[in-house]
C-alpha cells in the first residue's frame, strides 16, 4: 500500500507528462545526442574522492521492509569503491569493496571475503553497485533520439540507449529522460536482453556540492526510487546524505581497512 502511494506521489510529480503530447523539437544529430550523455556524465563526475551516507529501504511483497544505513566511498582515479553497512545491527560491519575490477563482500560474522559479481544486488535490495557509481553513459551506450516529453513541470529529452558492442553491461538497453534545462536525469528505464522492462528509476531530487578536485559543482541525486517492473510490488528507495568530496586517506580502499572498520 505504502509502495503504491510512494509511487503515486513520485509519478504525480514526474509522470503526468508521460501522457502529454510530445513537444515539438528539431531532430538532434548523433553528435548532439552523445554530447547530451557527456553532459549528464560530466555533471555527476567528481574526478576525485567521494564519501557519503546512504539510506536504503527495500519493500518486497509478502516480506518485512528491510532498511540499511550505509557509508559509501569511491575514488574516480582507479574506480575503487566501498560500501559499509552501519545499521541494522545484524548487518553492521558488512561491506563491499571493489578492487581491480573485482567486487568483494565481507561478512564480519564469518570473517571471510567472498568475490561477488558486479551485478550483485547490494544488501539484497534492488540497487546495484553501479547505482552508486559515477555515470558513464557516454562511454557505455549509443543514444537514439526519442523526442521530448513533459514529466510533471519538467521538459525532458527522451533517449533510448543501447549498449556498445563488446561491453558486458547489466542492462543492454536503457530509456532515459533528461531534464532539458539542467541535464539531470529525471527518469530511467532499464531493459533486459529480451527487451522486457526490468526496472524504472525516478530521480526526483538533485543537489550540488562544490568539489575541489573537479574545481566545480558535482550534482548527485539526493533521492532515487527504483520500481521493479517484473515484480510490480517491489521497490527500493535510496537517500543520499552528508556528501563529502574531499580527498580520502590513501589506504582507505583496502580489505584491512574495511575489516578494521567492521570491528
Amino acid at each position, binding site marked *: 500500500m505504502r509502495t503504491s502511494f510512494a509511487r503515486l506521489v513520485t509519478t504525480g510529480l514526474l509522470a503526468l507528462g508521460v501522457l502529454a503530447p510530445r513537444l515539438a523539437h528539431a531532430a538532434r544529430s548523433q553528435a548532439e545526442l552523445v554530447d547530451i550523455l557527456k553532459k549528464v556524465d560530466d555533471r555527476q563526475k567528481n574526478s576525485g574522492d567521494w564519501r557519503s551516507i546512504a539510506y536504503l529501504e527495500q519493500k518486497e511483497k509478502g516480506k518485512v521492509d528491510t532498511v540499511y544505513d550505509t557509508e559509501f566511498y569511491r575514488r574516480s582515479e582507479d574506480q575503487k569503491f566501498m560500501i559499509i553497512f552501519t545499521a541494522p545491527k545484524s548487518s553492521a560491519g558488512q561491506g563491499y569493496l571493489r578492487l581491480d575490477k573485482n567486487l568483494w563482500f565481507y561478512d564480519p560474522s564469518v570473517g571471510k571475503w567472498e568475490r*561477488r559479481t558486479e551485478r550483485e544486488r547490494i544488501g539484497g535490495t534492488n540497487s546495484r553497485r553501479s547505482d552508486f557509481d559515477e555515470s558513464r553513459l557516454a562511454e557505455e551506450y549509443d543514444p537514439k533520439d526519442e523526442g521530448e516529453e513533459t514529466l510533471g513541470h519538467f521538459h525532458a529529452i527522451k533517449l533510448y540507449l543501447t549498449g556498445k558492442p563488446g561491453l558486458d553491461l547489466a542492462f543492454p538497453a536503457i530509456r532515459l529522460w533528461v531534464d532539458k534545462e539542467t541535464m539531470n536525469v529525471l527518469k530511467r528505464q532499464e531493459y*533486459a536482453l529480451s527487451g522486457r522492462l526490468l526496472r524504472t528509476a525516478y530521480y526526483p531530487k538533485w543537489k550540488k556540492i562544490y568539489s575541489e578536485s573537479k574545481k566545480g559543482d558535482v550534482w548527485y541525486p539526493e533521492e532515487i526510487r527504483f520500481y521493479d517492473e*517484473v515484480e510490480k510490488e517491489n521497490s527500493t528507495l535510496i537517500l543520499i546524505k552528508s556528501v563529502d568530496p574531499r580527498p580520502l586517506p590513501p589506504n582507505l580502499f583496502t580489505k584491512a581497512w574495511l575489516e578494521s572498520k567492521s570491528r
Partner: protein
Amino acid sequence: MSKLAIDFAIAFRNLLQHTRRTLFLGGAIAAVTMLLILLTGLSTGVRETMIESATTLSTGHVNVGGFFKVTAGQAAPVVTEYEKVVDVVRRTVPEMDYVVERGRGWAKVVSDTASEQLGVGGIDIKNEPHFKSVLKIVSGNIDDLAQPGTALIFDNQAEKLGVKVGDALTYSAPTTRGTNNTVDVRVVAIAKGMGLLSMWNSFVPIETLRALYQLRPDATGVVQIMLKPDAVDHVNEIAARLRSSLERAGNRVMDPVPQAFWMKFQSVSREDWTGQKLDVTTWEDEISFITWVLDALRWLTRVLITILMCIVAIGIMNTMWIAIRERTREIGTLRAIGMQRGAVLWMFMLESLMLGLFGTIVGAVAGTLIASLLNKAHLPVAQGLQFILMSDHLRLGVHATSVAFAIVFITCVTGLAALYPSRRASRLEPVVAMSHFG
C-alpha cells in the same frame, strides 16, 4: 550315515531336547535378524529413493559439469563444446547405459502474484525417457515440454506461485556475461513433489535455457552419465577414470570435491582463473547436502544391531555355560569312551551354529515378509520426513544379498559366542567331568 550327518543329528536332537531354551534363544536370534533386515531395508530404500529422485531431477550417476569464467569473479555452470566431452565419456565409460545433457541455472521465477528463486534445468524431453517415467504428472502434459517457451514445475511451487497449467511465468537471471535477461514461459505440466530436490528445481526446454543465459548451441550445463545397474556401486572408480581421460584429452579438470555444483560457486569465484574447467562428480557428491540422512540411518542400524548382538551373544554364552554344566557328566562319558577334544568342541559349536542358522532363517523370512507387506501398504510418511526421504511413502529395499548377509553374519556371531564355552567343555578331564554332580 556319514560322520557329519551323525554330528548334525546329535546337534539337532540336543536342540530339540532343550525346547524352551532353544525357542527362547532362537526367538531372540530371529528377532535380531528381522530387525537387521528391516533397518538395512529402510536404509537401502532411502538410498534407492534418493538415487532415483536425484538421478531424475538433478544428477546422473556420474556427471561432467564445470564452470566457465568470463572474468575471475564471474563463474557460470557451463560446459562448452560438450559433444567433445561426450566423446571422451563414450570411450572411457563402457559401463554407461546412456548419457544426457542438461542445462543448469538459477533464476527468479515470477508469476502475476508471487516470485520464487528456483533452479532451472534445461532438458530435452525427447531424450529423457527415465525422467518421463519417474515423474508423476498432476496436471498438464509432460511431452509439451518439447515446445520452446514452456516449463514444468512441481506442485509445491505451483501453489506458492499461484499458477496452474497454461499460466505464464517469467524467468529472470543474468546471462553468463552478467547482462540481465528474461524469458517468458507457459506452464505445461505440474508434477508431484519428490521431496527436497524438487523443492527448488524446475525444468524448461534446453533451448529456452540457452536463450535465457545466452549460451551457444554447443554449450550445456552438465553431461549426465547413467550407468548400468551393476556399475552404480563403482561410481567413484568410474569418476576417477573419467577425470584422467578428460585431462589426457586436454581439458582442465577441477580437483574432486564431494559437493554439489552450486556449493562450489564461492570457492570457484575466489580462484584466479578464467575460461573453462570441467568438474567430474558422482550422484553422491551432488546430493552430499542430504546424504547425512543415509549416514545417520547407517549409524543407527550399526549401533542398534551391535547392542542387540551383544545381548544375544551374552545370552548364547550364558546358555552354553548352563548347557555345559548340565551336561558335564555326559561330556566326561563321551571323553572316556574315546571322543577327542576337537569332537567335543565341534559338537557344541555345531549346536549353536545350527541354532543360529535356524533362528536367522526364521528372522529373515519374517523380516522379508514384513518389509514386503509394508511396501505393499504404501504407508504415508509425515511431510517433514518426505523432504528427506524424497518420497511420500515408506519404502524398504530388501534384497537377497542383504538377507544372505544377515543370515551369515548373525550365524557367525552366534558361533563365535559359543566358541569359548565349547572350548572350556572340550578341555574338561574325563575323570573330573564324570564325577561332577550338579
